[in-house]
């Protein structure tokens, strides 16, 4: 099984990448968190395959992602894009040999849509895998979309917003105030806390056990 680290915007310490073949840069939960300058190159120099996670995109976010992907492909620094927005797909059609993976947000749609349509859609756009962190979602994606599962651990997705909880705005540019600041949110009425990461709420530890047959494990780095 392949192993990956979610690296977000920055290149991690070399020790964190030991034994890994993939880095998943960017974010599925915030369009603003494209990797910083030189990050993909640094990851490549460490011998990693590189996936770019993308989120829901506004027009501005879509333009930025499109531009970033074009530059990364020109530089030979991108092997895969994780797609969570219908609108990004048309922009990716021009790239030959770029792996596509259905992101966890778009997967909520494509794990439920009618099987024959979904298979055609997956084939037409060249999806080979899907990201998942919940067993039922993984099963549906395998059965319906016929794709391999890239499993995210240890936290499972619960909700996402487009309004930045850290900086309180909808803008496509920000000060990256969420950087390295996952927030544990507790309330005495809830059995489990939530974890605020970027613009998403996750259930800590809920996806710690990957399903059999997953082709890749994606681990979230950093202190929780």
């Amino acid at each position, binding site marked *: 099984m392949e192993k990956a680290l979610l690296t977000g915007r920055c290149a991690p310490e070399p020790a964190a990448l030991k034994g890994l073949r993939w880095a998943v840069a960017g974010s599925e939960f915030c369009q603003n968190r494209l990797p910083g300058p030189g990050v993909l190159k640094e990851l490549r120099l460490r011998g990693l395959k590189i996936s770019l996670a993308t989120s829901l995109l506004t027009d501005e976010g879509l333009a930025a992602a499109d531009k970033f992907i074009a530059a990364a492909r020109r530089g030979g620094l991108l092997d895969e894009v994780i797609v969570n927005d219908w609108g990004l797909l048309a922009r990716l059609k021009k790239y030959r040999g770029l792996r596509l993976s259905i992101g966890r947000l778009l997967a909520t749609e494509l794990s439920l849509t*009618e099987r024959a*349509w979904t298979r055609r*859609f997956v084939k037409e756009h060249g999806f080979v895998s899907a990201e998942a962190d919940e067993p039922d979602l993984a099963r549906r994606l395998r059965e319906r979309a016929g794709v391999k599962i890239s499993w995210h651990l240890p936290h499972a997705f619960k909700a996402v917003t487009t*309004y930045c909880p850290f900086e309180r705005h909808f*803008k496509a540019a920000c000060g990256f105030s969420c950087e390295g600041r996952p927030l*544990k949110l507790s309330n005495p009425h809830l059995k489990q806390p939530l974890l605020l990461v970027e613009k998403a709420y996750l259930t800590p530890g809920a996806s710690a056990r990957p399903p059999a047959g997953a082709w890749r494990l994606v681990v979230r780095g950093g202190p929780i």
Partner: protein
Amino acid sequence: MKLTVGVKSAAEARYFLDNGAHELYCGLAGLLNNRLPRENLSAPEGAGEIIDLAAGRGARVFLAVNEIVPEKLYRPALKILAGLKERGLFGIILRDPAFLSWLRAEKFRSYVTLSTLALCFNRSALEFFARLGVNRLVLPMQMTPENAGYALKNRLGIETEVFCQRLYYGVNVDSLCFLPCPQTAEEGSRRFPDFTCLLPFRSAGGEYRMPMPGPDYMVNAFYDFYKGGAGYVKIARWPNTDRQADLFHKVRYLVKLLEKGAGRKLFLHEGLKIDSKPLQYGKSFTYRPLRA
């Protein structure tokens, strides 16, 4: 700007039409949509009654089928939609691109509103849905005018519908929120965990509440939607019709102000005076429909 109102019965349809609704929509039990079974009509005849009522006032009626539709429901759904279309149903509210493609392949033609639940946040996504035959987009509730130029100024002939976010707002993307909620549970525990998005949390940074923009921002957003050309404002179904009616009258007041030419300053002043709890909208287990 026209008022599009969700109803649970012919009695509610009559009430909202009497009070200025331009369009109505409803759902049917068994045909998946984003409300609980008790907020749906029990049989197509109920929708037919609403269509007849609206036709007498020159109003349009839509049917909401705005969840991902399981394939086993495709044929039964088509039969119901075709029957209601013959009766005068104007359009359908959909989210599922597969079902939309299938309806087209079956040569079923209707005005199609793309539900707010569809993940349509940019120009390219709108083009994707336009190719499937969408006629109107209900902007995602978390889409504000600063990012909605793609929809408001589209050249695809697609109309736009918005929420009055000052009065009705969800802190998370509606179709991508899997926290417990009265909107998705018929009963639930009726305790605090069912209102997770409204709870105060302890965190290392102090008390945390899932945030939303301030009231000034929301009032301005509605002003900008209106000036930007949004054609419709949606007042969604609510289990408690009294509260839905209260919201309807507030929205109608704001729209009237805009139609009379209120400037931003006056509109903001008036909009801020309105008593509003936008996060409570729809988050109630109290089922109190309007009785005939």
